[in-house]
């Protein structure tokens, strides 16, 4: 699904050159759940940004779903982001003056979908996170956990193949964090590839594989669980909505 080979990312200012990633190589298989850990400044977010086509690497080869994306133009990168990648951020990043329906609808607006199709998808996504009844509410009317569920619905509404989560539970208490993790585990169980950046070793251990970064390099890699074990954790059960499964 994701293949990075000898990726480097250098940020330059007039006086400073910062190497965020160096000779970084990583392969993530289709359907895998990978956690990425490491101290602050180790390059976790830079890796995630490059993986999500939000930034370009300075050097190296990045293939997403078998396609070299290193030299794509802005329009093609945007289309790939929209169609293949879902994002979940630590601070939810919901647009405050759009209601839940409109927030979840944002990625679909950048596809040529009919309004009926969009409506159906958004309602289904909100239903899957248990918030269908609140689709006219504004984000400020929700708790942190509920806002992150909306962000999950927004990430899933376009049916991405790859879900990138950057500290998805960083702003939540442990109960809410657990609930969000269960959502992610269920999404993974449904077949989506997930790459999650986290500081929390307990959360990292809920993935199949953990990658540890230091100074922009992969310093260690550990197989935590098999795919079957992760699926069993969430009790995979057919076509039920995520919220019902969890």
């Amino acid at each position, binding site marked *: 699904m994701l293949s990075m080979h000898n990726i480097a990312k250098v940020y330059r200012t007039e006086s400073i050159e910062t190497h965020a990633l160096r000779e970084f190589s990583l392969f993530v298989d289709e359907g895998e759940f990978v956690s990425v850990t490491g101290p602050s400044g180790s390059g976790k977010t830079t890796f995630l940004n490059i993986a999500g086509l939000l930034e370009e690497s300075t050097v190296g080869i990045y293939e997403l779903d078998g396609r070299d994306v290193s030299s794509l133009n802005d329009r093609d990168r945007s289309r790939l982001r929209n169609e293949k990648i879902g994002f979940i*951020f*630590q601070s939810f990043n919901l647009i405050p*003056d759009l209601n839940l329906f409109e927030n979840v609808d944002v990625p679909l607006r*950048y596809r040529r979908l009919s309004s009926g199709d969009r409506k159906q998808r958004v309602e289904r996504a909100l239903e899957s996170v248990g918030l269908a009844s609140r689709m006219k509410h504004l984000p400020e009317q929700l708790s942190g956990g509920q806002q992150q569920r909306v962000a999950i619905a927004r990430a899933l509404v376009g049916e991405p193949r790859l879900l990138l989560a950057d500290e998805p539970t960083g702003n939540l208490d442990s109960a809410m964090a657990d609930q969000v993790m269960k959502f992610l585990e269920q999404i993974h169980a449904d077949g989506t590839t997930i790459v999650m950046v986290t500081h929390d070793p307990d959360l990292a251990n809920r993935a199949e594989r953990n990658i540890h970064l230091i100074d922009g390099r992969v310093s260690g890699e550990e197989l935590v669980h098999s795919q079957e074990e992760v699926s069993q954790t969430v009790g995979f059960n057919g076509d039920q909505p995520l919220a019902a499964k969890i």
Partner: protein
Amino acid sequence: MFNYNLKLSLKSMRRNPIMTGLMVAAIAVGIGISMTTLTVYYMMNGNPIPEKSDVLFAVTLDNWNPIRPFDDDRPERAPHQVTFHDAERLLAIGKGKRQTAMFESSLIIEPIDDEGLPFEAGARVTSADFFVMFNVPFIYGSGWDKSADAAAEPMVVLTKGLNERLFGGEDSVGNWLTMQGTRFLVTGVIDTWEPTPRFFDPINGGFQEINEMFIPYSLTRVLELTSAGSDWGWKSEEINSFEEWLNSEAVWVQYFVELESTRERDDYLVHLDAYVEEQKRLGRFERPLNNNIYDVMEWMDYHEVVANDAKILLGLSFLFLVVCLLSTIALMLTKFVGKKSEISLRRALGASRKVIFNQQIVEVAVIGFSGGLIGLSLAALGLQGIEYLYDAPAGLVKLDWVMMFTAIGIAIVSSMIAGLYPAWRVCQIPPAAQLKTQ
């Protein structure tokens, strides 16, 4: 996508009402002032009779001082009016398809009932072709015919306003009015007619209201009508009677001819030259031949109906609009910077730079449209102020549909131009820039 962008624009405008208000106000003030001056300029510069402006010609004959031209600054120009007797002779020859002579006068109208009081009304003393030549619209009746001109019959055409005052707006054709002790038969009442500029007499004010009534030119001699307009003379002449005044070299009559083809125009100039040559043999027209005809728009230029000051003012007002737009650019930059996190998010969710650019441009267009609407109201107020300041007739300078669409168009286009740089800047925000820090 446009509807979506429109919806986002309205939300964005509501999100920061003070900033939005300042931008709209800056555009509104710029549009208000520039449209006020543009409307005045447009009105002054407009074609008052587009359907015939190229077939109607003002006639000038150079009967001026042999040793000094009529206009020292423009010696090639003949006097812009003709003498009474030249006009009378040209009318009698009738070489053009139609022709009319005219001047402004005034008469005392005696009351038509026992309760009324006499009052003075402005009159245009003219000939029968005036009404047809200038497409004058009638509510009732018509102008008089040429036989009335020839026989100097006392007939009168009233304006709608004067007819309202005298006859309560009723069909007054066939009624009689007494003026200067003479009974005039009402032959017609004209509808609202406001050619702007007043092309047939820019000499006495291109932006004056038309005269309240019209009477035959041939009555001048009979009733000893004098001009209430401008007159010029160069020759020291002893005038002891009205007849001597009519036969003097003083110029105070405007003369127009209708000529439909280039050939007719050439023929008419030959005719004028022949007429002047004939007069030269009688001891008049001592200057070299200098007869001219000017179509309506040339005649407006000749009289500089649109003063240079108006052009300068127009330029200054558009410079002011530019200043307002520069202020708007600064405000837009500030506003758009405030949207960095939303832009980053949208980019992350799949919006390309072009999509983001379009979204911002729609927003500035909506701001421009709002500014244009308010600017139109300001322009309407400004125009009322101008009418008040210059004591112009009510409604003389007004925003018509063309100017309204122009105002909105200028507001939208100029704000979109102003928004190009801020929109471009916002497109350069990397998608990852704000997502971690929000």
